[in-house]
């Protein structure tokens, strides 16, 4: 299975020696996604929603089918709940502005210490703009959201809880059910930042019981430059637009403008059409995969890696030790060694890993680390990648000593 899956990713197929362990930063693109982009650009390229000629109708149809595919991937109620954006960061900023503008001074938004900067800074900006209160769910020593602290953080002023579905540093998964239950008691909405979750399989936003879900195409085997925001229909309908321009208006006069219904209201300007079509091809492919098998396999590789890492003297694992509590994202520190140096030597052994703060400085601070080295595992990785990493770390630590 591994060899054949890997072969479906053009970059990996062409670089058999490469151990790509940085999918949390960007997953490799699936052949079908790239093919769909090329096919769209060479046979159906036209602007959407505005033309009546056949090419434009074909572009429109492909774009709206992409919306339906995204709705299926998330098990959304309706394709009208799918907004195409330029990426997870844009999706999160959209909510922080459009939903954020429905909040008033004194309302409370709850995020967590474990957030990626893209789900952290937009809320700080909202605090500065609107005078909301911003609450921070702390993390436990192993990087999990400390939901035991919820009772003191959440009250009737809490309008939104916006947290990551799983951490991009520790892989720690959020206990969504507990969070949603707490939110429902006070009438707060729940947003999940799914940027890291989507490469590990289709999601079910209705089963999760949430209100918003955000993710990026480039992290789930699709093209860059495109992302998704899903929001419950009635919430989207009540939100003012964020970006404005062509395609999202009802009527424009010098005095005032009126807005189109969602999703168009939130898609100002020409959207990333071919990219949405490419993303849909990736999502469609994912929906057709056998996820229990993939999860078992990703989990096994994750355990193998953690076992090996824990044997390295001076190495500190960040995040939960039990692989069931985390997505296959594994970060660690090695006493006295900087991740950039480690990654540099690993690169010489054809291992692609990332070192740094991973755009999660508050989390790093909470875990008592400045920077760390991260290995992230996706469905195209195999035991050879893990063994190469463990061997490579041995070389690196000897070389840098």
């Amino acid at each position: 299975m591994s060899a054949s899956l890997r072969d479906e990713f053009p970059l990996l197929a062409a670089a058999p020696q490469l151990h790509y362990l940085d999918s949390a930063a960007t997953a490799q693109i699936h052949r079908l996604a790239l093919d769909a982009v090329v096919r769209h650009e060479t046979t159906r390229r036209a602007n959407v929603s505005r033309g009546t000629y056949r090419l434009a109708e074909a572009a429109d149809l492909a774009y709206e089918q992409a919306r339906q595919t995204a709705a299926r991937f998330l098990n959304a109620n309706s394709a009208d709940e799918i907004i195409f954006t330029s990426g997870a960061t844009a999706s999160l900023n959209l909510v922080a502005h459009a939903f954020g503008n429905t909040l008033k001074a004194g309302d409370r938004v709850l995020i967590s210490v474990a957030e990626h900067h893209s789900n952290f800074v937009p809320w700080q900006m909202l605090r500065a703009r609107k005078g909301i209160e911003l609450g921070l769910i702390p993390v436990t020593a192993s990087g999990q959201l400390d939901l035991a602290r919820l009772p003191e953080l959440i009250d009737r002023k809490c309008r939104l809880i916006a947290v990551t579905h799983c951490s991009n540093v520790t892989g720690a998964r959020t206990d969504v059910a507990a969070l949603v239950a707490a939110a429902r008691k006070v009438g707060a909405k729940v947003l999940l930042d799914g940027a890291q979750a989507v490469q590990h399989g289709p999601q079910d936003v209705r089963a999760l019981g949430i209100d918003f879900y955000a993710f990026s195409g480039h992290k789930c085997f699709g093209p860059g430059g495109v992302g998704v925001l899903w929001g419950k229909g009635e919430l989207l309908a009540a939100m003012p637009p964020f970006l404005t321009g062509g395609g999202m208006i009802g009527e424009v006069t010098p005095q005032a403008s009126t807005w189109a219904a969602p999703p168009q209201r939130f898609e100002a300007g020409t959207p990333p059409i071919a990219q949405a079509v490419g993303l849909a091809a990736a999502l469609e492919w994912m929906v057709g995969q056998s996820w229990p098998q993939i999860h078992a396999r990703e989990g096994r590789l994750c355990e193998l890696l953690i076992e090996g890492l824990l044997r390295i003297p001076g190495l500190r694992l960040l995040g939960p030790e039990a692989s069931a509590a985390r997505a296959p994202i594994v970060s660690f520190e090695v006493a006295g060694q900087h991740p950039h140096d480690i990654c540099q030597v690993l690169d010489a052994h054809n291992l692609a890993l990332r070192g740094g703060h991973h755009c999660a400085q508050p989390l790093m601070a909470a875990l008592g680390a400045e920077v760390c080295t991260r290995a992230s595992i996706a469905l195209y990785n195999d035991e050879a990648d893990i063994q190469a990493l463990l061997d490579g770390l041995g070389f690196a630590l000897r070389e840098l000593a």
Partner: protein
Amino acid sequence: MNEGNSLYQDAIKQFAQAAHGHGQLAAAAGEAKLDNPLCGDRVGVQVAVASDHITAIAHETRGCLLCRAAASVMGLRAVGQDEAGIEAITAGLEGMLKNEAPVPAAWPELSMFEPARAYPSRHRCVLLPFRALLAALLESRRSRHGDI
């Protein structure tokens, strides 16, 4: 395949280990902190200056081996230089890394960074301490002359 070897020469590890100039000055004419937002590395530099020349330098450096080794060379060599001298060294080092220019003759130990030419993402690691020093010198000039 193992290009990493040549980058981490013993000289680099030794300079990083030695951490020449590490610490703080009792009284500084200028100081500056610079960081690399992408990796969180940070260099703080303090200088004492007399007649436009550096009379003492101290730095606190948090970073990778390349950054720490570069800071250490700076800590060893900067005293006696004026701002123009440090500018020339920094430009020389940048040219060496980015444009295959020769090693700045005045500071021959910078040759240990030659292998970093092949790794553009690491150039800023090497340059960060020098840029922090330039910022500290600018600050000292500002506070002396009340202008830029």
